[in-house]
């Protein structure tokens, strides 16, 4: 199983007030079906067993079929047939990834988009924090290994108000003002807030376990590093409204006063 990386959610720029629609980027966690060519014959029966073990998890789940690594021979698989068989197992194929150009053309003809290849998931340990509160993994399989080189730091000099989301892709994020409740900071690297942090902050989004969150006044709604998270009621009252940092240590999410 594998997931696509969290991608930047971009609200379409609205040209005139409030149009009839909005297009925005959104990140999804989806299963990727990788076919073991040598045992392709047993695919449907074995998959059926798997689905039976966790029917609620699989019911109508979106599936991306991975075409990479298949030999040319296998690449001529009957996509529509595969879609129909998976549908009978209540799995819905929503796209393909990888494959040759011909293969992708065939997929598009069959009504399946080619999605950019995602990064495979790794489950993070679920562990209590120093304060004895359980940090929980965001959701199974949303954590991916860091893969991309760091870019220059993103700096935001105005308050980040409620309803706003900022994503520092492949870089650190510095906010030199406050972050309101209802705002969200995302960064593949570290997050620094030189003001009160009242909204959500998710550092190490791409899986970097060394990422940290720093702020001058800890009042966050939610904090996350590399997929582990704390919500505001887990936050130790001792650091409330104090300068603090959040980091991962030995698989534990730690929140310390600075």
């Amino acid at each position, binding site marked *: 199983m594998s997931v696509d990386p969290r991608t930047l959610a971009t609200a379409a720029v*609205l040209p*005139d*007030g*409030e149009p009839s629609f909005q297009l925005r980027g959104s990140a999804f966690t989806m299963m990727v079906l990788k076919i073991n060519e040598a045992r392709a014959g047993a695919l449907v029966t074995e998959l059926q067993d798997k689905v039976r073990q966790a029917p609620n998890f699989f019911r109508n789940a979106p599936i991306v079929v991975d075409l990479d690594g298949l030999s040319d021979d296998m690449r001529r698989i009957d996509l529509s047939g595969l879609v129909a068989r998976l549908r009978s197992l209540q799995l819905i194929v929503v796209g393909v990834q990888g494959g040759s150009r011909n293969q992708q053309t065939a997929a598009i003809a069959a009504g399946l988009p080619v999605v950019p290849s995602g990064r495979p998931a790794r489950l993070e340990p679920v562990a209590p924090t120093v304060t004895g509160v359980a940090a929980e993994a965001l959701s199974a399989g949303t954590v991916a290994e860091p893969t991309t080189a760091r870019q220059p730091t993103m700096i935001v000099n*105005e*308050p*980040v*108000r*409620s*309803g*706003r989301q900022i994503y520092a892709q492949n870089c650190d994020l510095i906010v030199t*003002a*406050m972050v*309101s*409740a*209802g*705002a969200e900071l995302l960064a593949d690297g570290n997050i620094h807030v030189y003001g*009160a942090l*009242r909204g959500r902050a998710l550092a190490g989004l791409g899986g970097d376990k060394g990422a940290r969150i720093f702020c001058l006044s800890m009042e966050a709604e939610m904090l996350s590093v590399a997929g582990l998270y704390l919500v505001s009621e887990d936050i130790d009252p001792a650091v409330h409204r104090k300068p603090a940092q959040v980091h991962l240590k030995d698989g534990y999410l730690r929140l310390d006063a600075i």
Partner: protein
Amino acid sequence: MGKIIVMTSGKGGVGKTTSSAAFATGFALRGYKTVVIDFDVGLRNLDLVMGCERRVVFDFINIINGEARLNQALIKDKRVDNLYILPTSQTRDKDALTKEGVEKVLEELRQEFDYVICDSPAGIERGALMALYFADEAIIVTNPEVSSVRDSDRILGMLAARSRRAELNEEPVKEHLLLTRYDPARVERGEMLNVTDVLEILAIPLLGVIPESQAVLRASNIGMPVTLDDKSTAGQAYRDAIARFLGEQIEHRFVKPERRGFFNRLLRRTA
């Protein structure tokens, strides 16, 4: 060229229309030629609060649609010189507010007026967006409670990101906080946020604190902007806020509960 001021809040019923009427009247009393526009298309409250509802012939939407000329729709206040009202339509909806139409009307008005006050509808949708889009300054009307403060924060974010000044990368819209319906006694009992709490969350300059006051309802029932009731605490607080807007240094009043002696309380009860 006149200034465009939006009276906005996100949350409904916090006192935008009351404050629009009060500010417009206050500016006019000080000799500034002022017009106040109702952007709450479909609800039409401003003309009631201003007491001119029976003189409405054409409205803001008629102007946008080119069905009438501006000076046919502008209603001149009978009490205060320099004060004009541009009412809105009760039969149309917010879709009638096109960006081009609003721009045309506001540009024409700012040629002639010192202050153009836009009374925004509640929410963060088209009506509210159109009311704030062309603003030079914004008065954020907030009540001392968590949901109102949160919505104000949201509106501040929209001003910073989606106003014309933001889109053209011009100097940002100037922000002012107007804390209304402030009840010092309830604040003291911990039932409402206090001024400091609100300022800490919103972090914008405080223009004024308007106390909760019976005079507001009384005034709007007779169609009189509360600024004209200079005996009331609310009327005085609005006058102070207007003076601060115009650059005067005035201490904040009405933020502490009144302390009354036994006799005062007795007198008040029988009064």
